């Protein structure tokens, strides 16, 4: 498998440079707010916490991308398992350890398929794992609660196994770094843009019962910013491919922008339905891992298949690296 140097692509260097610069600017702004006593203490504290958490999160997110393909797949596997843990403890699925165990195996298998670079298995795992979840608890002869535990198991596998593992599979493309970094950076930027534009402009709420803090202005602002940045970066990354046409680039930007916000609203709906504020406590200022990575859940498969339609991932690379075979 062809391996490129970590900082080979200009977009990779640009995103890392911009991220470091953004963090420095954020610290400078919050520091200035502190010195001039602008904003409420609660808002300043939240901003400090959020920015501090980013300092820990960004190396954890970007480090594996720079280190190499296997690191990406390892990190996505751990991310999937961490998300599953928060999801099962929030929904009560953890009280069904057999279903949880099947979902864990499904997450491991999906990421193994990516590591093996075996697309046939990667695709087959979706119906296969669902089949195992559906059948798994029948021999216990305990039909009460069957629909709930099975549905939650499938939901969890779809999001944290089949869905997130698309990020792992992307790493089979030798030039995966700028693509992954673009997705990681822009979905994070989408959150920041929605928060900032919403605070600056305000106006009517987007879906007050689902997420009372989100405004229509914030959503539109975030969608505009994300679409423009994704389209611009994609124009460089996919130069010379059939995807590098303005209408496709804008369509891709819209898919990432809408996917990011849809993922956020999906998690808000889950939390509202259960009646909790955050999915966990591990990231100060953000909540749980899922509270931070919800925007990636839908963007990962959507962007994989959009890029796959035009360009593909690792099509000229050797396949079935571990299992061998045809």
């Amino acid at each position: 498998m062809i391996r490129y140097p970590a900082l080979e692509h200009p977009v990779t260097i640009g995103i890392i440079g911009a991220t470091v610069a953004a963090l420095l600017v954020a610290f400078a702004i919050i520091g200035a707010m502190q010195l001039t006593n602008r904003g409420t203490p609660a808002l300043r504290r939240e901003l400090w916490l959020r920015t501090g958490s980013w300092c820990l999160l960004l190396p954890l997110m970007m480090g594996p991308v720079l280190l190499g393909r296997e690191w990406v797949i390892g990190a996505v596997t751990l991310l999937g398992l961490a998300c599953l843990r928060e999801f099962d403890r929030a929904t009560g699925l953890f009280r069904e350890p057999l279903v949880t165990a099947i979902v864990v195996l499904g997450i491991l298998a999906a990421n193994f398929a990516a590591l093996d670079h075996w697309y046939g298995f990667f695709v087959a795992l979706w119906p296969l794992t669902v089949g195992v979840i559906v059948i798994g608890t029948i021999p216990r002869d305990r039909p009460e609660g069957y629909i709930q535990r099975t549905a939650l198991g499938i939901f969890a596998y779809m999001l944290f196994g089949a869905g997130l593992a698309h990020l792992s599979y992307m790493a089979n493309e030798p030039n995966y770094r700028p693509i992954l970094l673009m997705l990681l950076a822009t979905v994070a930027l989408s959150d920041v843009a929605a928060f900032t534009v919403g605070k600056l402009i305000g106006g009517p709420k987007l879906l007050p019962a689902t997420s009372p803090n989100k405004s229509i202005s914030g959503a539109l602002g975030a969608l505009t910013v994300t679409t423009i940045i994704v389209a611009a970066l994609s124009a460089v990354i996919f130069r010379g491919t059939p995807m590098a046409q303005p209408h496709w680039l804008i369509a891709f930007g819209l898919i990432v922008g809408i996917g990011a916000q849809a993922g956020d609203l999906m998690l808000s709906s889950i939390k509202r339905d259960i009646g909790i504020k955050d999915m966990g406590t591990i990231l100060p200022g953000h909540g749980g891992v899922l509270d931070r990575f919800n925007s990636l859940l839908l963007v990962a498969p959507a962007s994989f298949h959009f890029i796959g339609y035009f360009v593909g991932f690792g099509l000229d690379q050797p396949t079935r690296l571990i299992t061998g075979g045809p």
Partner: protein
Amino acid sequence: MKFTLRPARDHGLDTGDRLRSLSRERGLGSIMLGNAWRALVRVYLATWHRLEVTGRENLPEPPFVLIANHTSHLDALTLSGVLRGQAARHAHALAAGDTFFGSTLSSVFAAYAVNALPVWRKRTRAGELATLRERLVEDRLAYILFPEGTRARDGVMGRFQPGIGVMVAGTAVPVVPSYLDGAHAAWPPHRGFPAPGKLRLAIGAPLVFTEAPATRAGWEDVAARCEAAVRRLAPGQRSP
């Protein structure tokens, strides 16, 4: 059991608080670690102490409270080691907070391997006992409890505290008495490590206190009846 869309009782707690929380509910990781730990304990008890168990058929499906005399750290290991299946997965040993939950490392071990819940000697609040009682019934748990409250330094069984009464009086949750013989000789409180020695665990018929009143007198009566049931299982006391 009916499925309810309900977060873990310990949802929202920080890791350290969660380890020491009476609301801690175990997930897949804890169950797997607990299973591995119990397998090791069973091998250890079978080889090092040639554990002999009688009356295993008296163990019901959860919820129940398994009680015994308390002379050694081997007691909780033995009682948790003899449980199987659903009862083993739902079992919590009620352990002295100051001994087992003093440091983060010991808390991790007590929480994940032993699945212990902390009981703080001389400062257990009524609310904590109420939480334990509520969870016992609602979550269908199995508690491993030593009603004497502490290990008998001389190996002679002491009086049972009324806490067991608070836990079960007025409920249909059975209390299963048991007597462990040989633990004090193998690992008394003053010794650092256990010596090899035969252990014999006798498990008696369950007692139910549905009619027991939720009063001081009622709780003390429950404790006295539990104590008598455990004493009857001691060697030399058992009917042939």
